[in-house]
């Protein structure tokens, strides 16, 4: 029953216009970054061709010109600001909608509460995760058509933005593709969990639009915490805001596994508890 | 004197044709029933007559004035469409009083009489959000008739009502007809529809496929008898 419910919920999550719209919107945003960097690369190419002594090939390549590798373009700024919306739009609204329409009564009676809520959580997670990662992968592959996959060099760390204390900097300068894949995995998981915030919010709010937009404000609130945390110029802080540490490049402070895993665990525990355990205890009218 | 004319009204929503060249004429003092399965276009037709949606082709005129061109909504109309919707934080009377304040046509006494006529208590302070489905339906009907409109449009008014409620609705509709209102009614109970309506339009897939004049049938039967 659970497997069937998961299959059904996933079908509903992926075969819906909102999913396609969110992915398309994400891909369009990444194109802003791509176009910006194609222009920059053309200039760099001209300079490289003119410079016989040190063309600095390693400073300009796929791994620091794709949207995840640079924190300068509008595309990058927009994507890593709007991603909470992009992940919630595909299916984060579904629980709200099903409560209002009364569909939940039918589903729960047929499948049982546990199967329904677990399947819903899985579908929301997967749809959010894919909505986060597909545009990034799209941009990476498209960028690969324009920028050479040059092995980055630590000599040019100011151009790449990956410093000795950046997360997985060793991977970046030795196996950059693995670096990108690991970051895509981190983004995949976080994208799914952030979408689940809207599912958890749907346990308390009546309107779909409110449930979908709340994750953005939640992320903004976490980002705002930085104002209270980063108070000393001497301390070597780690990045706490997902709006920054989900970028595969260092935007302000370096990311850290401890923070990433802690926030991942906290998000999972809270959203899972609220939407699967706590909500299940309530009566369905 | 009220008349409604639909002239080849077609409505397309995205790729679906929900109404197809519907042509009807309706007059005051009669009850017109809309019969059809779910999705046949009854509610869409009602929305078109109320003015909530614009026809893609054709026109709807009320007393010779075309909706959407000469006026946006009929001058005197009361309606209940699908689920009644009021403000949850107010009582039934407070909700109706607020609506009546817009045109200023219904007096306090009239509103209370209307609420009593549908079987509710106008002095009841219970908030609308605590109403049962049947009570909500009754309040919706009261809102539709309280200003004694020339046109009354009721979509499934007997939904969620018990036997006494259904009889109440029937009495109300007969009174409205006697008052001279033009009543458009949809109901899944064909017996009730045939009992109340003077004419029935049977709809299928957005088209009017049959027009039954029950009044004439009744007169003929009466004549034969």
């Amino acid at each position: 029953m659970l497997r069937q419910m998961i299959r059904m919920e996933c079908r509903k999550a992926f075969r819906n216009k909102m999913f396609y719209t969110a992915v398309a919107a994400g891909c369009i945003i990444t194109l802003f970054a791509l176009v910006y960097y194609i222009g920059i690369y053309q200039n760099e190419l001209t300079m490289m061709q003119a410079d016989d002594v040190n063309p600095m090939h390693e400073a300009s390549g796929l791994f620091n010109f794709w949207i995840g590798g640079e924190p300068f373009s509008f595309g990058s700024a927009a994507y890593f600001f709007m991603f909470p919306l992009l992940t919630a739009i595909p299916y984060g609204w579904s629980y709200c909608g099903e409560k209002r329409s009364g569909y939940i009564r039918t589903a729960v009676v047929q499948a049982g509460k546990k199967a329904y809520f677990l399947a819903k959580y899985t579908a929301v997670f997967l749809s959010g995760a894919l909505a986060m990662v597909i545009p990034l992968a799209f941009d990476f592959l498209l960028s690969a058509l324009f920028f050479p996959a040059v092995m980055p060099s630590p000599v040019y760390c100011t151009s790449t933005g990956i410093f000795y204390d950046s997360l997985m900097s060793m991977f970046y300068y030795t196996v950059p593709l693995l670096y990108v894949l690991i970051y895509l995995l981190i983004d995949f998981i976080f994208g799914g969990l952030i979408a689940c915030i809207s599912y958890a919010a749907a346990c308390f709010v009546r309107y779909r639009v409110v449930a979908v937009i709340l994750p953005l404000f939640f992320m903004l609130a976490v980002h705002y915490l930085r104002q209270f945390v980063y108070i000393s110029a001497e301390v070597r802080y780690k990045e706490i805001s997902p709006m920054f540490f989900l970028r595969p490049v260092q935007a302000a402070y370096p990311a850290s596994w401890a923070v990433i895993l802690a926030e991942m665990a906290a998000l999972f525990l809270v959203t899972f508890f609220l939407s699967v355990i706590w909500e299940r205890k309530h009566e369905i009218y | 004197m009220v008349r409604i004319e639909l002239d080849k009204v077609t409505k397309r929503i995205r790729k679906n044709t929900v109404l197809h060249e519907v042509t009807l004429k309706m007059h005051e003092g009669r009850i017109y029933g809309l019969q059809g399965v779910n999705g046949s276009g009854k509610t869409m037709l009602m929305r078109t007559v109320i003015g909530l949606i614009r026809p893609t082709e054709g026109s709807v005129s009320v007393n010779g004035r075309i909706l959407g061109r000469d006026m946006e909504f009929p001058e005197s109309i009361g309606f209940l469409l699908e689920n009644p919707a009021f403000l949850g934080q107010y009582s039934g009377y407070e909700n109706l009083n607020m609506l009546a304040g817009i045109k200023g046509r219904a007096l306090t006494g009239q509103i209370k009489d209307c609420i009593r006529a549908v079987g509710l208590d106008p002095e009841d302070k219970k908030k609308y959000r605590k109403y049962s489905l049947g009570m909500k339906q009754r309040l919706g009907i009261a809102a539709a008739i309280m200003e004694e409109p020339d046109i009354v449009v009721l979509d499934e008014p007997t939904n969620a009502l018990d036997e006494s409620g259904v009889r109440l609705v029937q009495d109300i509709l007969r009174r409205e007809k006697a008052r001279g209102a033009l009543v458009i009614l949809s109901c899944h109970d064909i017996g009730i529809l045939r009992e109340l309506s003077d004419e029935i339009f049977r709809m299928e897939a957005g088209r009017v496929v049959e027009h039954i004049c029950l009044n004439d049938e009744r007169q003929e039967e009466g004549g034969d008898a």
Partner: protein
Amino acid sequence: MRFIRYFLFDLKQGALHNKALLLTPAAIGALVFLDFLFKAHRYLAIGAIEESVSYGDYWFYLYGGMKEYTPGPGNAFSFPVVWMLVFAAVPFVLLNYPFRDMGGIGQQILVRSRSRSTWWLSKCCWNFVGTVLYHLMLQTVGAALFLLFGMDLTYRIHMDFIRVVYDALHEELWERSALPLAVLVLPALVSAAVNMLQMTLSLFVRPMFGFFAAALLLLASAYLMSPVLAGNYAMAYRCDWMLKGGVTGRAGLTAAAALFVAAFLLGLVRFHFYDILEE
């Protein structure tokens, strides 16, 4: 007369009874005040600023925005979180009411009023008043906290504080001592225009995409200092009153008014043909 009744209904239901509209700016105002207070104390303690801050500095902290962004190595784009929170919260809070109303008792009111234009005009007025109420609430809570903490409740500003907060060079800014009235009004007007745009866009696409567009406009305004992007006029830091070569207040007023009117007219036409279907 009918319009006034309509508008009073919207004002009551959509603004005065809208807990989110009243509580959200209060929460934001209080949070930003705490942040501002801690920062001010820190800067005073380390000697980065000479004297204690005043309400004008708090206002500037709320509405300042950020300095012009120039992409370059070591200068990653970091959006102005305080400003974004202030300006993104209000379209969110105002988003749902018109469409909730349209699907609910609003239908009854709309048909009784017999005028789609009246409904739309009333909603536009509600939108404007709601925005003004939001910003008033935001500033009032700040003022109340200033009184509570016994701080200077004047519109004086301290340039040393502003330079530290916005990491500005001395020569970039004019020397100012107090906030002028025109500057006080502009952010709220621009905010009203953006909210109006959101409401109109939501007649064409789903409301969540209307919000998406409004948020993107605000972010784009932060990213690029351009007179074309309306959000720039809502950043007190980027106004030519403060920043040498900044955007002009007059252009801001014109842009806000033009955007508001354009959105109003577009919405009026769109709503005239809008199919009101329950979802």
